[in-house]
């Protein structure tokens, strides 16, 4: 069994501690004796065949436009095909926006998306900043949002969860993120997975299960993770 992480645009879209998510996937597999390889997929690189778990972080506007162009055509198709075939994926902020149909920035041309999620994102007038708690099928997810983009889900999209604390996709409908098959996109940026090990383990499990049926990961002693989760819940309650 091998976890092959495809880290999309590791050098250009990687802010707000996004790499914490890759570190969490890596460690949690390694602690169970699972071999891990990390493939960085930059601008101009093809999607490697053997990746079973993707991560795509957030970026600044300049970088995001170049990445949107790179994902058009065969590369975006290859990523969609991998997800249809059961690969897992986590995308945050900019990566999440570019997995929808389109991202429309302020005063600049719309950036075409991959179309994996039935969603459209638009630059909004306000920045949503703060601690977030989301009710989801992976339990209570804690994180921090910092985005001015507003995402509206289409009729065929499923949200990742519903915000109990925080603004979520657009500040109006209470949804946060999107989910399609084993792909999850959301605005809970950097270091989402280290504090939410249930979601991290699900992504690892789904990745390993691609082409080999059911996989059950052994539980890990998550004492410090649970403390960090509880601390984040308390901060979200106290600060928003």
């Amino acid at each position, binding site marked *: 069994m091998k976890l092959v992480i495809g880290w999309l645009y590791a050098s250009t879209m*990687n802010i707000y*501690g996004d790499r914490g998510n890759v570190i969490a996937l890596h460690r949690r597999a390694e602690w169970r004796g699972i071999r891990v390889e990390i493939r960085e997929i930059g601008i101009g690189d093809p999607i490697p065949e053997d990746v079973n778990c993707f991560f795509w972080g957030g970026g*600044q506007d300049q970088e995001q436009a170049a990445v949107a162009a790179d994902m058009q055509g065969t590369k975006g198709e290859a990523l969609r095909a991998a997800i249809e075939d059961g690969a897992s994926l986590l995308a945050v902020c900019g990566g999440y926006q570019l997995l929808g149909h389109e991202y429309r920035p302020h005063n600049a041309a719309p950036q075409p998306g991959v179309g994996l999620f039935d969603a459209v994102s638009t630059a909004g007038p306000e920045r949503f900043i703060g601690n977030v708690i989301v009710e989801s099928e992976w339990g209570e997810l804690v994180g921090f949002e*910092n985005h001015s983009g507003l995402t509206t889900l289409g009729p065929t999209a499923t949200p990742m969860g519903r915000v109990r604390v925080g603004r979520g996709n657009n500040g109006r409908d209470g949804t946060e993120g999107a989910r399609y098959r084993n792909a999850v996109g959301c605005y809970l940026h*950097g270091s989402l997975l280290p*504090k939410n090990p249930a979601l991290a383990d699900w992504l690892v499990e789904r990745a390993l299960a691609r082409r080999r049926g059911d996989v059950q990961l052994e539980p890990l002693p998550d004492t410090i993770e649970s403390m960090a989760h509880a601390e984040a819940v308390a*901060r979200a309650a106290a*600060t928003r």
Partner: protein
Amino acid sequence: MAPETITRRDPRLIAALTAAKVTSAAIRRAGRGGGTAAPGLVAERIDPSLLGKIARRLPSGAIVVAGTNGKTTVSRMLADILQAHGLRVAHNRSGSNLARGVASALASQADLFGNPRADIGVIESDEAAFPEIARQVQPSLVILNNLFRDQLDRYGELDAIASLWRPALQRLPETTTLLVNADDPALAALSEAIPARRVTFGLDDRNPRYLLDAIPHAADAKVCRTCGDVLTYDRLYSAHLGAWRCPKCGATRPPLDFAGTNLALHGVDALDLDVARASSPDHPLSLRLAIPGLYNAYNAVAAAAGAATIGIPAGTIASALGDYRSAFGRIERVTYRGHLLTLALVKNPVGFNETLRMLTIATGGLAAPTLIAINDLTADGRDVSWLWDVDFELLADGTAPLSTTGIRAADMANRLKYAGLHANRIYPLDADLATGLDTFVDALPAGAPGYVLLTYTALLGLRQVLADRGAVEQFWEQ
């Protein structure tokens, strides 16, 4: 440059200054500290151009220092050098670096007619406030240190600062000198083709001991601002700072007018370096500083270059910098219950990486048990995700234990776990700073030293705890 006439009376300015002084006195009588911007707020309501009016009357003009890391240190170093040269310096030393705080500081150092009781101004400017401060002050010299990710939840993204600065730098007149860190590719690009005179500084040391092999994760500006290709480095010193070039379009670090060379870092205690001027490369200025770390080498080059640019003699620069002691919170030493504690402020990934480098460069691993205190209040940055951009992985090989405290003690402990530290070295302690400190100190061997790394409000809190308990200051500056 001729100052505006001293005798001209400006009724609005006089009213504003009177109100500011009344407010300051009221704050002092009430015994409240920290209200450094309140007199500026009152005065600004009466005369919105007060800052510029006072600054432009400074006989030798004003110097504005901005940039993510080191602006406090560089402006304090410069003020010390100018004072050593016999100049009276108006300086917003007590803290606030927003336009209002600068106005307050200058108002408190002026008479009621708005005539400054100083010869020259040294103004530390917040990144976001820089365009407004530069517009009002019309500085003779601007020093830009670097541009890093810092408190992103306050400013939005780094591009936002760059796009604020671009027009502000274009507006600087030909009579202004812009001293810019050319090792920072973003600053080099922002300062291209502007009317002001550009003077560059940076490091040009070739000792492999002080070079990084690969660009650290926390670095920001990795792409060429001309063509978008990924930059490469002939020599990389810190974060994205170094001798950079673009393999595609040929853009490269501009030649350095002032270059730091012959660097020698002495752990947490001191550093030596030479500052060579391109116009007289054979006569470098040799500096010995009683402050540590590679980031302070950059600060010293910036301050020395700034002072040399305005004609301060080399001997004065070297002796003032030799006497310079750490600015608030950078490195402090305190004896508490028989233990020498070294306190360091950590406020962003780049600064944290440099501190970890400083603590491990002499010995290869952490030499002493370490306490890390992380808060997430506004002044610390409410988002603690930045801890994942710090390279704690380089602590994985040592044996010294690491304890955590502060509001985000558990988050910090979790970060250390995922950095690959053995579980038996990680101690998540109580979030309360006083309790955390005592648990940490209780576990130290008798008489053994410890390191304490803290975010801004955790440092303020811990200093209060130490002061309440009568801990002996070795050196720190109020």
